[in-house]
């Protein structure tokens, strides 16, 4: 899926180098709200210009290259804002671009290859897309507002209690379901569904599925190994602040 992704990103590495080494990193830039025509700017410069924590950027970039954070990185509460913005952009990419795109490939497939099984795939994907929407809406409407309100409490002297109304484990299960069906679809397309006039469409669709899978995988890791621990830390911090 990803060739030559052996670059270990440090603050003085050029952004262009990161992309040339692993094109999937383009997704990271986009989700971070960074634009192309990056000239010869380094990670450190771009982070400074866009007020993104360098440690956080490095973690993201290295996650894209397959290295999981060691747990010793130092994030600040400010990073929470960047992470939420990143995840929100990612959601738009899923909902407005990737899933509708894959759906239209399936429709194209249906048009040229009218096997009953292909119609079943459309139904399969429809149902799956609905599950994904449900999960993303849950994050948009419950999880993110909760985290943002927590973050805003940092700067107020408010001592009102806050409640924790989401669970990390429920969260993780959602994710594994989303990735599981994607794998199912890939295997069906590669191994089983009869092919008729649809080789190109199928290839395009598979590339989209690989891209989506790549991004989803990192999405999960960002939430599980960076965001959730950081939020737990913030919860503790606020609790202590309130007790004073």
């Amino acid at each position, binding site marked *: *899926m990803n060739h*030559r992704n*052996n*670059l*270990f990103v440090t603050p003085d590495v050029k952004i262009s180098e990161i992309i040339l080494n692993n094109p999937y990193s383009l997704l990271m830039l986009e989700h971070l709200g960074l634009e192309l025509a990056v000239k010869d700017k380094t990670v450190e410069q771009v982070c400074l210009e866009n007020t993104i924590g360098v440690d956080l950027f490095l973690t993201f970039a*290295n996650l894209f*290259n*397959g*290295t*999981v954070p*060691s*747990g*010793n990185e130092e994030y600040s509460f400010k990073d929470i804002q960047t992470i939420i913005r990143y995840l929100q952009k990612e959601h738009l990419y899923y909902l407005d671009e990737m899933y509708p795109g894959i759906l239209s490939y399936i429709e194209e497939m249906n048009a040229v290859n009218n096997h*009953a*099984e292909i119609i*079943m*795939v459309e139904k*399969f994907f429809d*149902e*799956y897309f609905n599950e994904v929407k449900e999960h993303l809406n849950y994050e948009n409407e419950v999880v993110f507002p909760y985290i943002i309100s927590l973050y805003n409490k940092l700067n107020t002297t408010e001592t009102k209690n806050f409640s924790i109304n989401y669970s990390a484990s429920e969260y993780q299960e959602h994710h594994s379901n989303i990735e*599981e*069906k994607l*794998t*199912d*679809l890939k*295997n*069906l397309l590669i*191994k*089983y*569904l*009869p092919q008729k006039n649809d080789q190109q469409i199928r290839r395009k669709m598979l590339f989209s599925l690989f891209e989506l899978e790549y991004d989803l995988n990192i999405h999960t890791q960002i939430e599980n190994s960076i965001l959730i621990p950081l939020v737990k830390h913030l919860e503790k911090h606020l609790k202590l602040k309130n007790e004073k």
Partner: protein
Amino acid sequence: MKNKKFNIVIAEPSCIIFEGLSGILGRQNGLQFIIHKADGLSELSQIIQSISVDFVLINPVLVQNQTKLFYSIKKLLPEAYWIAIAYSLFDQQLMSQFDSVITVNDSPSQIADLLAKLLNSRTGAEKEIQTGTLSDRETEVLKLLVTGNSNREIAEKLFISPHTVITHRKNISQKTGIKSVSGLTIFAVVNNIIELDKLNG
């Protein structure tokens, strides 16, 4: 399986060694690792509860005085490879507990080769499962599954225990690469295991 990411736990008290090893593993061409850090055996035993671990790289010092705990964790992870990170000599009996040894003087490519070799020895066995088609029993389970039966109902109808049903389902998913029931339904239709009009809905 090529794009599989392998879970690797590094149990190593030295930060220098840990970071060094993670760096080396992260920069590998080919094999991809998700690296987890454990400071000791008890943390290791927590990690294995939430993820399926493929490799444990562990400093034998952490094992030395806690062999009982070590054995019990090892038992819980029969599939994982245990590799000692040695930077001095340890006694033979202790070292014989590991599948292999990395020493601090090994080059990055030696480490990569070692992990790849261990993996190949396992995927050889896995391949056997993967090339096989579904057995008669598995086909029966699949049929019942995609026509809307729960694990318990399948167990009752085939006079087997629910636990056996789960094992069959695991094997089906492993052979086909498909886990969800709706995905398996499509598989069953494509392979004429079930006719389309027999499906509800």
